[in-house]
């Protein structure tokens, strides 16, 4: 990949950013509105200790997943910026 000119770097950065937003956004949807609301009944047939699985997603699991997703996004973007030479100077 030729990263020589500014325009290519710009486009690569934005394309990668959108790709990650799409991937992580899909997981975000699946764990919350998916597992917690839309598919909660079938998931409730499965048990996780004292929890029905759907209920667990709605009141616990989705929130844990949100934290992980946000940190993954912060990390992959920081790496991408390093790779493309787009790191900001520390203030």
């Amino acid at each position, binding site marked *: 990949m030729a990263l020589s000119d*500014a325009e290519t*770097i710009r486009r690569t950065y934005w394309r990668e950013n959108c790709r990650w937003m799409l991937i992580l956004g899909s997981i975000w949807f699946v764990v919350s509105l998916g597992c917690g609301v839309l598919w909660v009944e079938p998931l409730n047939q499965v048990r996780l200790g*004292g929890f029905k699985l759907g209920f667990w997603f709605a*009141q616990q699991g989705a929130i844990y997943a949100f934290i992980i997703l946000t940190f993954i*996004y912060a990390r992959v973007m920081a790496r991408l910026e390093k790779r493309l030479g787009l790191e900001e100077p520390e203030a």
Partner: protein
Amino acid sequence: MSLTETTYWVVGASFALYILIAIRSRAGTTQEFYVAGKGIHPVANGMATAADWMSAASFISMAGLIGLSYNGYGGSVFLMGWTGGYVILAMLIAPYLRKYGKFTVPEFIGDRYYSDAARVVAVICLIICSVTYVIGQMKGIGVAFSRFLETDYETGLFSGMFIVFFYAVLGGMKGITYTQIAQFCVLIFAYTVPAIFISLQLTGQPIPQLGLGSTLADGSYLLQKLDQTLLDLGFQEYTTSVRGSTLNMAAFTASLMIGTAGLPHVIIRFFTVPTVRAARASAGWALLFIAVLYTTAPAVAAMARLNIMQTLAPEPGQHLAIEERPAWFKNWEQTGLLGIDDKNGDGLIQYSADPETNELVKLDNDILVLANPEIANLPNWVIALVAAGGLAAALSTAAGLLLAISSAISHDLLKRTLMPDISERQELMASRLAMAVAVLGAGYLGLNPPGFAAGTVALAFGLAAASLFPALLLGIFSKRVTREGAILGMLSGIGVTLAYVFQHKGIMFIPGTGFLGDWPPNWFFGIEPNAFGVVGALVNFTVSLFVSRLTAPPPESVRQLVEEIRIPVSPRSI
């Protein structure tokens, strides 16, 4: 020492701490006043954001909302909605607005949509959202004081106003940030300590999140026991009772999520960190700190509900005698949060789902958190801590909202629209003045809450979701959306949402003026008014995109602005 004395000491100590911080962090420039000099560490900003975010409602009312009003599973909308928004904020909003690098949310909308009209519409939307929200906080301060410190409501409100006035006027965002960090520590400690005790007592498991899925002393699972107890009394099962319909739950969750990502007082917190990278990391930290309370709350909800029901009916068919009710029960009856009416005159309290025979006639949501330490027989200092925690939650959120309101007035209306020639010093004076007026105004509304105050916090989310969120998102992700599109989009989004709420809840919430009646058959696809923000957002998106197609594209400078905010630093050609 009596309970009241202990409470005075603990609350007094926390207030002294906030004042000390305020004196040490005065703001000297507008940059310090609006965005704390952009020098806040991402972890510190995460804590401040968490305190900013978690209001009196989160601290005092949410567990009860989940455990009582929404009967368990239905309350999941708040848990997912008020946390899931941070993922959207971290990916779609915060990094780009941080890169833009100015002071307020309307400022971005005004610049991106090359129009003072757009800026003013954004200021109006911001003020509607933030004022509805701040009334709830002022009431929370007054109520917390009157319940724990036995002062009257007005004295409580004035004490709270004095503290906020002191650090918000003196320090602006800088003072608010450091006090919010202290307030986070107070409130999270105050929330988790009683939760750990109650979890230990019921399940022997110190971590409430795990205790919720553990077994009770008799070997049955806590949630199963709760489901069974509720069914016996004629309620729906705790773990499966849906709020309205699946569609309503999805719409409610989505509205709270995108409302979260569109609330100005949260967004501006991300302007205080030094870099775009720090803004993304900070969102993760904020969510982690928020999650400590938000994953504990459902455990408190279920455990406290079970505790209360087992007090009232130790075995199925057995009822607590009125004469034998415990001391905490009598205490909270005096505050009006609990109420009994021995309808059949047998001297026993029959609690059931049937309003005809139910004798526990008043069971307020707030009781689950407020009375928890007493029900679990915890020491006085824990009860005092809950008081300090509730006040910290209300004060920190009120301060954040007041800054959003006052900076929109002094910076967006005054500096950017009406009087662009004022100097830095004059603007700093103006921002302090605007803050002082905002605190007094909020205090006035707290003293004379308008009739619609009760239903307002949820409404603030619907309005933010329908007005500001789409304008911000389109401003970042589209170069083609025009000023006409954005202005009409914001107005139609907020208009549709307000119209829907008013037609069911009454115009300005005045009872009897709602012309469609507030019951499910008249709701649009069964979506309740509080969940309507997502529909308003869809209207906003549609109108913005459609009108933009019909109007002349934005100027080249705006296209460049969008290019610039999408990337942390300009790439260098090698």
